């Protein structure tokens, strides 16, 4: 265990945000889960007692006579937000006094740094470059992420859970979000920051980042495993696999909704459902592709002259 190496990565001024992010993320998930559980219990209670539901005054607190049914934003919300603003200002000031901007040497096109890393918030995207060709990882996927985020209000037909924490009422949305943000985005940033060393090789935490390290790793394409050699055959095969994934996956999503989320499903139009299913499957495809690459050294599934997937 190379503690010095670990310390060097964690203490780099570049990596302060990501190092801070990990405990903060855990803390806020804990907080959200805690509140969601309380709310869920309350919802159960109110569902059992319709009379109380009419007089109940707050989202989380149990009923108490004499309490105001609602409270004003000012001062009750803003005073807390202002306190938070002060504390954040303090943190930012101390941060900017103690840590200087991590500037490096003048750029030299003849001597590039190794590993060359993007700013921490882009390391997830950079990590994606390992699994897809730049056209897919650099253009198509980010575009799909942005479009996907933009269409959420239009495909999310569930009217519940607005303004309070709940798990029961929004299981699908929350698990999708947790998967997309925590598992994919944050985890990939963590991989990019802590795991990827010189030569963008995989170093386990605590392994020395040795610039001279040599590893033996041969990557194959999926069609190669099936002995396909002609470009045409590779393209057709890959297309079948990818389309097949979406068809089979689409079927699975359909049956999931039909069986478990009947209400949501009924509220959705065909366009809303198919858009959701497509985006959701694309998101699922990313870790699948990562697993193929990392565990079975499969580089591409679908090879065409224009793009590789």
């Amino acid at each position, binding site marked *: 265990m190379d503690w010095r190496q670990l310390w060097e990565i964690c203490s780099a001024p570049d990596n302060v945000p990501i190092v801070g992010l990990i405990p903060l993320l855990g803390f806020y998930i804990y907080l959200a889960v805690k509140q969601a559980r309380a709310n869920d219990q309350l919802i159960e209670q109110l569902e059992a007692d319709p009379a109380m539901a009419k007089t109940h005054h707050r989202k989380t*607190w149990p009923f108490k006579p004499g309490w105001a049914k609602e409270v004003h934003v000012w001062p*009750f919300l803003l005073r807390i937000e202002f306190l938070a603003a002060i504390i954040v200002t303090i943190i930012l000031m*101390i941060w900017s*006094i103690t840590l200087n901007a991590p500037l490096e*040497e*003048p750029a030299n096109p003849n001597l590039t740094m190794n590993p060359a890393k993007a700013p921490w918030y882009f390391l997830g995207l950079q990590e994606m470059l390992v699994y897809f060709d730049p056209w897919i990882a650099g253009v198509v996927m980010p575009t799909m992420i942005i479009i996907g985020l933009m269409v959420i209000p239009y495909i999310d037909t569930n009217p519940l859970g607005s303004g309070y924490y709940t798990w029961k009422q929004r299981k699908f949305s929350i698990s999708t979000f947790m998967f997309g943000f925590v598992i994919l985005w944050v985890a990939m940033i963590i991989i990019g920051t802590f795991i990827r060393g010189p030569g963008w090789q995989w170093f386990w935490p605590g392994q020395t980042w040795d610039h*001279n390290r040599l590893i033996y790793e041969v990557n194959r394409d999926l069609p190669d495993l099936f002995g396909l050699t002609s470009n045409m055959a590779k393209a057709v095969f890959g297309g079948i696999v990818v389309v097949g994934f979406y068809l089979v996956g689409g079927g699975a999503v359909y049956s999931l909704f039909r069986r478990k989320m009947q209400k949501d499903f009924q509220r959705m139009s065909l366009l809303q459902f198919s858009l959701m299913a497509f985006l959701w499957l694309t998101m699922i495809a990313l870790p699948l592709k990562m697993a193929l690459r990392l565990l079975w050294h499969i580089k591409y599934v679908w090879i065409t002259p224009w793009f590789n997937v």
Partner: protein
Amino acid sequence: MAEKPIPEQDPITGKSYAIHYLIATVILIGTLFWALYDEAWGQRPWKAFQDQWKDRYGAFLNTAKSSSAKSEQSVEQDPQYATLKQAYDQAYQESKTKGDESRKKLDDASARLLAVQSVFTDRRAYVNALTYELETSTSASSKASKQKEIDSYKAEQATVEFSDGSRKKFTFPQLEETYNEIRDERTKLSLELGDVLKPVTAAKAKMDDYISDHMVDLTPAQIEGLKKKTTDWDPTIVQINVAEANIVDRCESCHMGAREPLRITEAAMTSKGAKKPDEYAQAFVSHPEPELLQIHDPDKFGCSPCHQGNGRATTSVEKAHGNYEHWLWPLYPKENSQAGCQSCHSADMVLASGDVQWHTINDGKDLFRQRGCMGCHRYEGYDKEPEDLNSVGQQIKQIETQKKDDVKQAADLMKHADAAESNEEANKLNEKAIALKVANSKADGRLQQLDFQSHSLMQDQKKVGPNLKDVRLKLNKNWIPVWLKKPSDFRPTTKMPNFRLSDRQIQAISAYIWQTGFTDELPKQKPGNAAHGKELFESRGCLACHSIGEGDQMQGGVFSANLTRVGEKANYDYLVRWIHNARQRTRPYCPYEKKDIGPEDYAKKGLPYQFDLDHSRCPNDGHELQVQNMTVMPSLRLSPEDAEDIATYLMTQKKQEPSSYANAVFMDDPALKEEGKKWVRFYGCGGCHEISGMEDEGRIGTELTYEGSKPIERLDFALFTEVSQRGGKDSEPIKDKDDLARLPDGPATEPWYDHKGFFEHKLAEPNIYDQGKVKGETEALRMPNLHLTKDQVLDLTTFLLGSQETSLPQSYQYKPGDARHDIQEGWWVVKKYNCMGCHQFIPGQRTILMGLKQYQDVQEQLPPKLLTEGARVDPEWLRKFLSNPALSTTDTNRNGVRPYLKVRMPTFSFSDNELRKLVRFFEALSQQPLPYIPEEVPALTTKETDMARSLFSSTAAPCLKCHATGDATHDKIATAPNFLLAKERLKPDWVERWITDPQAVSPGTSMPSGLFKQQNNQWVFAGPTPPTFNGFEGDHRKLLTDYIFQLTAEEQRRVAASMPHARAAVQPSTNHKQAVVEAQHATNGGSR
């Protein structure tokens, strides 16, 4: 939630956040102050330095002042000062009344001027503003109204209140006039006052000058000035900004003492009670070499061009020194600080300022050449000859081909012309053919030029190691593999490095070298007299370059081989030839055909088998041959018998018998030859040695001209990258005890992942970066172990650290166009031939011979000092002397100028090129103008000649007692050159200076000083003048000089015959003991 009791009060409306706000606000305000502190001091650590500077330097100046006051008092005690003081007092008294009067007048005028001025400038400003409005107004009517306004304002009366209380009214024009009047009056008055006080100020200046001239340190007044400057200092960034070179250096913001006129030491700056000097004390010292700063004015050169570091950074010591990860030019460590010289002085071989030589960088540069680094590594400026020769060779080839084509074409054209149909056409073709022939004869001229060039280049081209084509003739065959195993085992000081060869490689390499060697017959030599050989070896000057004896017993120079065990390896017959003339080649080499030319090639053309510098044309193609061994070893012009004696002596130098070496039969195995060739090429042996088949091999190493500015990532630390970055007690990879001892700072404990660390480790153990790696024979690092000492590693590291691509403009490079360029070039030649082994060029420079014990009592037997050589001798004569130091073509077994010296000025057979460089070097070193126009020496009348002769031979100045006369017996005991040489050799004005005060020109000379004294602006003889001088008013010194320049051999013989001392000195002084010994030796037939 269920477990928790529900609060009675509404927690959202009822909870108070006052305490939270209080704490958060207090912390926020705290960070605000922290931010302010950080802005003012945290990011500006130099402020703390400047505060400390004011304290410590102020205290230092106080103590300095009291000691300075004491020494000032002692100067004031001086009677000379008293006279000055008296003069000052007198002048002061004389001018007192007049001065007071005019000073009073001046004060009065000043007061009046002040009063008028304040009113005048105010009103003038108003007038000017109105005038501007007038100028810019557009309509005629408004112009007119403005004009009126101005006029009325000017006519208005203004009151001026004078300092005595009186008031007076003026209109504007009156005011202007009065103002100008008073101003002129004041100027006149102050000039008057100056005139009155002139003698006083002059006397005062004389007094002050006297004090500052007679005090070692600064005067109390000067120190007071410094103190005031220090106390008044406001913290501010001190910056040197040179726009043309993009230098912005703020170093002096902390290093406040760097340029102070007082010498400030760490101890003086350490605060009282502190045990060790802290970082402030270390920062405040003055620059250790103030003389260097005088040549390199910091206002022009800044600091970082020499020292490196980040001159702009002010936020921390680490940043400013550039010792952080991403700064490419970190401060040179103190011990390597001379590396900075290299960035501008790469063209200089020797760096000296005044009498100070910069040894670290000089030795680094010298080692790079002497140790043969340039054999493998190209470095701009080093070993240029092979490259130049190559390009000359290519040009020759090109022209030859062109010529051949032209000849063929011309023949074709002629043929066509013969067959042409019309006369006109035939003429045209003929003309073309003739044009081609003319072009060819031009090409011939160019070829001749190129051949001439290559003649010089070939002469200048030297190899660090011996010629291995001669191995069969010169070496004990069985010794070769033993030597290759580890050369430093046989000869600890050898230049030949250790290549870590395997036994197989040794066998193969020795087989290749042995089998490709010349097999020519050597003439057999008679055995000589070893005892006489030893004496010659020790007295002829061999020890200036060579050493003998090992360990403590070693004496002599390290420039060339240590000869302690030469008897084990050498072949006697070859050794004799080598000592007699090392440049003599066995066979000449033709670079054009790339082969060694033998007698058969000469025989084919019917030419005699003769090759030397005058017969250097190839019999096959007519181009220049390499006719000399490429060694710097000169010919000492020994007689064949003397050479035999020395060789016989050297053959006795051995620790074991040559026959005791194991028989190396494999060297004749033809199967090994091919493999050997591979290894000889692989290890780049041809870089230092001449080897058959390897004459045109390129350098195998990386170019080092800009090695210091290579990015650190390009330096391969291999498996030690991490280790060297982390430091600690396990970070030293070198395990070998000998190699460890080569590290200048000892085993590493700190991180050493930098250029210095890389170079030092590489030089200490060149294959260190292979440690732990699995590599094949041909992949391993090839750099051999040069068995350097600690100091040498430091020198070379410094040299390499400084080898940087500089960002400074070209004009900062030291490339003078004047005589200093000749000095630059000359040093390369001087160092190349180790001239400094025998001669002194710079005051204070020690020669190797000076250090030998045989010269301790007989200093006059040392070779002459060349400090003023350029001023002393005629450059044309010097050129002749350098090309033939015997000054004779027939009698060569002697020194041309100083036959009485046993040490011999050798014949180096310099090329014309190097001769020119050397002559110009000496002229430039003595600041002599070129070309030299000899002074006309007036012919003396008979009377004058008689007088001069009587002086020349007088008992008070018996010149011929010491100076050689050409008489063999006398010259044995002479200690000075023959006068007959003077006319051609010396510059008359130098001779005059010389005979006046030889000690000043050449300290330690045996020529007596004080022969002349000054009388009525004439130099007259200090001893009793001969009677012929009665009534002579002229300059004795000039007369004698002129006489010497007109001396003929006949005249000299006559004078010598008339002098009792001239022939064999009756009473040799103790100084001459050595000479007498040799004289006796001569009569015993020792010298044959």
